[in-house]
């Protein structure tokens, strides 16, 4: 992968393991991707595909038994994995910040919004209490919380889920980060609120000029917001393309399956049942020898269960599938 001048974050060959009593789970295997300044990169995958673990690795928030075993995470030229905890802390919440999936539980129930919001502002922007509160109210207004100067004294339980996610967003953006990692920011919310939060993140991205790394399993969300997409399966990147290319012409069998399993209004007229990718996600403790997706793949070939496919670069996108092996005869079958 070439390093552009405007590359903000470059993850190179990242592998993250969880060493458990029953064995080692390779949650992320040899993952590489880049986030450019100001763009929205979506990482898509099912639960357990490693997308959240990858984002926590970037944040340095992996908790034992999780551990980055190899690779580099380069942010503006500095390898985050080589930083001291102190240096990493200066970066977290300041240059790189994160919104989590569960707004209901992600805020501390015993402190007021003001307390939780001003904490990172005071820490990173070195403001005094008064200035930090002013900044916090400003942020709450920015994320669309009505009568922010009053609501700032609320406790989390006095707010709805959508409001809390707005507060989380305000908290993440309060120090003007260059990169926002949003880990399933809308999954726990009502559909109408989902759209609001996505629109909010989209708006703020334009306003503040930050890049967004969007972690999601929802292709609808990806289609609406992302510039480029990384599709993950079994801890590996299986396809990487621009959002336009991916939705216009999905290539990897897994991506195809994902897109086909989205219900659409057009389909609802005939009585055909919704498409489902057959089978289950492989057991992470016992990954197959060949392609992780082979067992569920409709276009499986003999070699798929024998060797692991590498990432092939095809027409500006990356694909982990032997169907796209330029040297093999299967290449013709695309």
């Amino acid at each position, binding site marked *: 992968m070439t390093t552009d001048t405007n590359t903000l974050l470059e993850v190179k060959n990242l592998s993250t393991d969880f060493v458990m009593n029953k064995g080692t789970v390779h949650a992320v295997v040899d993952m590489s991707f880049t986030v450019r300044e100001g763009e929205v990169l979506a990482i898509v995958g099912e639960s357990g595909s490693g997308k959240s673990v990858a984002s926590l690795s970037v*944040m340095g*928030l992996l*908790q034992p038994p999780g551990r980055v075993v190899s690779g580099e995470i380069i942010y503006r030229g500095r390898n985050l994995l080589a930083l001291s*905890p102190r240096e990493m*802390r*200066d*970066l*977290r*919440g*300041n240059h790189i*910040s*994160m919104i*989590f999936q*569960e707004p209901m*539980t*992600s*805020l*501390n*129930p*015993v*402190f*007021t919004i003001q307390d939780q919001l001003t*904490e*990172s502002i005071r*820490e*990173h922007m070195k403001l005094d209490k008064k200035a930090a509160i002013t900044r916090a109210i400003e942020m709450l207004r920015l994320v669309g919380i009505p009568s922010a100067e009053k609501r700032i004294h609320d*406790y989390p*339980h006095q707010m709805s889920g959508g409001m809390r996610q707005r507060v*989380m967003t305000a*908290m*993440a953006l309060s120090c003007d980060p260059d990169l926002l990692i949003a880990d399933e920011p809308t999954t726990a919310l009502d559909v109408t609120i989902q759209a609001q939060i996505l629109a909010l993140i989209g708006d703020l991205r334009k306003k503040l000029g930050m890049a967004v790394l969007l972690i999601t399993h929802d292709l609808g969300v990806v289609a609406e917001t992302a510039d480029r997409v990384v599709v993950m399966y079994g801890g590996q990147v299986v396809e990487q393309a621009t959002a336009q290319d991916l939705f216009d012409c999905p290539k990897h069998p897994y991506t195809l399956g994902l897109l086909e399993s989205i219900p659409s209004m057009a389909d609802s007229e005939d009585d055909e049942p919704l498409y489902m990718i057959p089978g289950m996600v492989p057991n992470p403790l016992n990954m197959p020898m060949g392609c992780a997706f082979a067992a569920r793949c409709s276009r499986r070939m003999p070699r798929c269960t024998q060797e692991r496919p590498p990432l092939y670069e095809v027409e500006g996108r990356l694909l982990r599938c032997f169907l796209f092996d330029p040297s093999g005869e299967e290449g013709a079958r695309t």
Partner: protein
Amino acid sequence: MFKYVTKRILMVIPVMIGVSIIVFSLMRVFSPDPAPIVLGQHATIKSIEVWRHANGLDAPVVTQYVTYVAKAFKGDLGTSYYTKSQVAAEIGARFPATIELAIAAILFATTLGVLLGVMAAVKKNSVFDAAGSLFALIGVSIPIFWLGILFIMFFAGFLHLLPSGGRINVMLEPTRVTGFYMIDSLTQGNWDGFKDAFIHLILPALTLGMYSMAIITRMTRSSMLETLGQDYIRTARAKGISETKVIGKHALRNSLIPVTTVIGLQFGALLGGALLTESVFSWPGIGKYTVDSILKSDFPVVQGIVLLVAVIFVTINLIADLGYAFLDPRIKYSSKKED
């Protein structure tokens, strides 16, 4: 809030009735007849009868109880068979000593217990955690009187560092105002008395607090471990604040919520139940007084003390429950919501 507190205070009444019936009957069933003990070896059958009649012990037990309750409602808990002075006054004279000891013990237990618990949770599965757990296990299982005697042997007998018992050197005793020697001596400018009272307090407080300390350690550890796995702790870390703040602020306050109840219950137990410790250290509080009174079948005194302990328990529980609302803003004791 007001309604809630009133309701909780009114709950004292049934508790008191139950406790008084139990202690009243138990004393009369299991304690030896006080008359021969009070009158001594030269008592005659006649004098015993006269004494029993004078103290109402010849009436049926139910009548005795009703009389007792009627008097108690007027604030008269009876008089001690031996000193002839009011039970309330006797208890009042000894209670400050017990409170002083209980406060010292709970301060020691809470400070060390929370500290050890937090450290064990943060350094989970480390040598430190194992050592902390072992220490807590020892604290829970060691008999208090034995620990007290060990302390006396080592610190008083062997090292001659600390006194083996008593509350204060008689020569340094402050004029009684509050009954708390440390407060009295301090307000009277009696610096030596203050130091002496403090030194006398160390061993009994350590002994008495050991069990509570162990319980608090274990409770804090498990509560802290649970809190550390919460999403909001990850959020706090994602903010880039220091780990000290993550633990000391975000995790500690949440994990202390269940610990508060334990501290409250333990404090209640310490206030009423320092029987062994006070006996071992000749601490002139109500614990030692209880033991002495039970041995002498001093019915009114034992009844009075047990009632007091019941009131203390209910009160401390109420305070602990109200303490929740302070730690956890989600709890509001409104009249609408049930407790």
